[in-house]
């Protein structure tokens, strides 16, 4: 009986250690969790349009520095990316 108890104790100890190590290995090789979001939103300072018709008092990038149908310098086409 004593021998059986001792063997049982060893068996429990060894299987516990092996299970722990097995779990460690599985977790180490599992896919990484989603990385924290690094995308940032930044409000840029005012950017002036091409021609001389500039709103120099524009307080911010997204405010009234935009204008209807601005013209590029002469000879250049007005290239505008707008989505489709």
């Amino acid at each position, binding site marked *: 009986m004593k021998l059986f108890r001792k063997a049982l104790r060893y068996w429990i100890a060894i299987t516990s250690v092996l299970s722990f190590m097995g779990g460690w290995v599985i977790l180490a090789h599992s896919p990484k969790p989603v990385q924290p979001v690094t995308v940032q939103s930044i409000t840029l300072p005012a950017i002036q349009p091409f021609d001389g018709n500039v709103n120099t008092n524009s307080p911010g990038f997204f405010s009234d520095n935009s204008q209807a149908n601005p013209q590029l310098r002469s000879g250049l*086409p007005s290239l505008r*990316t*707008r989505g489709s």
Partner: protein
Amino acid sequence: MEIVRLRAMNSDVLLAAEGQAAQLAAGFAQAQQFILAGESRFTRFTEASELSELNRSAGKRFQASSDLFSVVELAQCFFHLTRGLFDPSILPELKRVGYDRSMEVLREEGPSPLFESLLDSERPSFSEMDLDESEHTILLPPGMSIDLGGIAKGWIAEQAAVILSRYATACAVDAGGDMFLVGLPEGLEVWPVELEDPLQPERVLTSLKVNPGAVATSTVMKRTWKQAGLNRHHIIDPCTGEPAVSDWISVTVIAPHACEAEVFAKSLLIAGPQEADEIIRNSGISLTYLAVDQGKKIWGNQLSLEEIYANAVP
């Protein structure tokens, strides 16, 4: 700089080139011819197009032209690079939500009703398509049909620009806002490109300086319609089969090639801010992106924003 405008691919197309007038005339003629031929090959809105023929051939091997094969091969590559966010095989979903005719006709006649019976139908994955590079044949699995709208437009714009560049010192092809730029206009170090305000199209949100290469924008604000009381747009999320719901309303991508810019603008728009950086990292392509949300805030990764800021027109 000489400019030619035409209407093709349901878009206003602008060709601009600098060089000797006599040579430019030939260049413009060839580039226009290429664009119109490309449009008739890649449109899904006419039964006679090569793309429609390919879609009808699902289940059998289709002998493709080298142009169609090239674009389909690129589409397959981008499907894997974007982990399925770019998926040309969403055509059945696009039709189901009402985009079954050209946008011009759809706006004139109104959308088709919602075909609920198609909701549960399963379609094969785009990864099941088989390409034979040596024979230039394409095998779409039974039940698959594809739409090459955006990627074909980008590809045509770039090819047309390359044709035009043989006759010009610098040129640009702008196909409805998706553009490819070759060389630099005399006296300039970059191309000035305006970014349209997605919420107020008559206004410019900002102006950028762009190096030779490609720029494309995808937005959920342009091709929109109502179907059975539901607001619809043409950017379909392949995961849901429904128009994408995103924190962003517009994404602009600056990339070496027009197809890359077009595909990643669409993919990032679907993915939104949570996955955007990871998608760009995984692509292995040098991409700069700029996204706009409902509040007109501009988003991007730090590096991109710094580049864009550095490149902003002073």
